[in-house]
């Protein structure tokens, strides 16, 4: 009886061990969200040479692991799938480190030049785990890693899908969520699934069709407003006062 129990125990341990060994290689291939990007940690890597920023990513099941590395101490951001001019409608993730603490948020580009975090818009922060680190000295560096679902279901997020997607990369030497990136920005056509990338330049697309007409109408509107303020003020002053 004693031998039987011992054999069963041994068999159970063996099974658990085998199961662990089988899943171990798969686990080893997944990036660890520890704020450090090791050589070959991610399945894919893209270097935006124009701005010196790196994007690393691995897709595993329904998740995407992303690593960002920029040559500055400040905010680092990645965004994808804008629906309008510049970054309008893009899903954006921005993070920076201050005092060793990571500040990291899920954002949505509510206009072509501004963004608000998803929570303030009524959405969710869908970043599942994140970590970051900074290197000081003559060659400063900010590294941020995170994981999220390919499709979060949040209306202020854009899904990561097979095929080329417009990806925005940017960084700034400032620790906040809003300072303008200046020239430290690039746009790339990237297929997250296939791993192919093609740099598209500074702007995702040219101005929306009909923008010039809109601008002209806007100018007329402003001019009308100015003429109304001046004209009505003058007419009011010129209007004769009734003599009592």
């Amino acid at each position, binding site marked *: 009886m004693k031998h039987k129990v011992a054999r069963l125990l041994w068999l159970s341990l063996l099974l658990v061990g085998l199961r662990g060994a089988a899943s171990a290689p798969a686990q080893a291939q997944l990036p660890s969200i520890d704020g450090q990007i090791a050589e070959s940690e991610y399945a894919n890597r893209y270097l935006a040479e124009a701005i010196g920023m790196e994007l690393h990513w691995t897709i595993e099941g329904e998740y995407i692991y992303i690593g960002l590395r920029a040559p500055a101490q*400040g905010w680092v951001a990645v965004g994808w799938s804008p629906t309008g*001019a*510049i970054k309008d409608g893009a899903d954006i993730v921005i993070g920076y480190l201050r005092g060793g603490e990571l500040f990291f948020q899920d954002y949505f580009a*509510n*206009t*072509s*030049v*501004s*963004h*608000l*975090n998803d929570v*303030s818009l009524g959405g969710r922060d869908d970043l599942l785990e994140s970590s970051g680190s900074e290197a000081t000295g003559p060659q400063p560096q900010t590294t941020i890693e995170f994981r999220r679902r390919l499709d979060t279901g949040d209306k202020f997020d854009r899904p990561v899908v097979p095929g080329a997607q417009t990806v925005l990369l940017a960084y*700034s*030497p*400032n620790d906040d*969520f*809003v*300072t*303008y*990136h*200046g020239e430290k920005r690039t746009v790339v056509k990237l297929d997250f699934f296939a791993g192919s990338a093609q740099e598209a330049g500074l702007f995702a697309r040219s*101005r929306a069709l009909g*923008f010039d007409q*809109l*601008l002209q*109408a*806007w100018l*007329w*509107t*402003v001019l*009308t*407003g*100015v*003429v*109304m*303020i*001046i*004209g*009505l*003020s*003058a*007419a*009011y*002053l*010129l*209007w*004769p*006062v009734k003599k009592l």
Partner: protein
Amino acid sequence: MQVPAPEAERIAWHTITAELSVGMLTLAFVSVIIKLLGVWSKSDHPLWRSLTWMAEPTAYLAAVGGLLSLSAGVFTGFTYTWPVEVLLTSSVVLNKIALSVFALTFWLIFVLVRSFYGGRLWEQAKVRRLYVTLSVGGFLSLALIGSTGGHLAGKRSALDIVLHHLGINTHALFILSETAIWSLLAVVVISLAVALGLRWRRDPRCS
């Protein structure tokens, strides 16, 4: 020593000039309201009398300072924030520019009226009404500028709820239809023509 980033330095200039204009023009508006209350009020309290007495020149000087800093704010907005190509693709930025132009116009006429009529404008009900109306228009434009600026800075505005109820969307480009533009311009031309006509009928020498 860490050298400040050029982008941060630029944006700070716009912030400084914008804050200056908001502070000074709000002071001008508040002074106008105090002066107006002084005209209506029958109180002889020495503190109230000196307050209303000081409000008049304060409104004028603050408006002059505010007008200058608002002009500087428009300049720094174009040159020290985002590239013009970027600015002109954002409906929020364009709306902010439009509101700044309206505010500039209101406060410019405000200063011109005060310069022309002097402190005695308060004795003329008609000019006084225009003066107060201009300050209200200028202040409301200023509040809307601040609200759109808040959105551009990635924050929300305290005015959002009010604007929502008023049906004002600062994210949608302010555009009037061609018919509306011509109708409004016609209203201005007709008002001016009628005012001049009435004035001429009353006293032909005025023409």
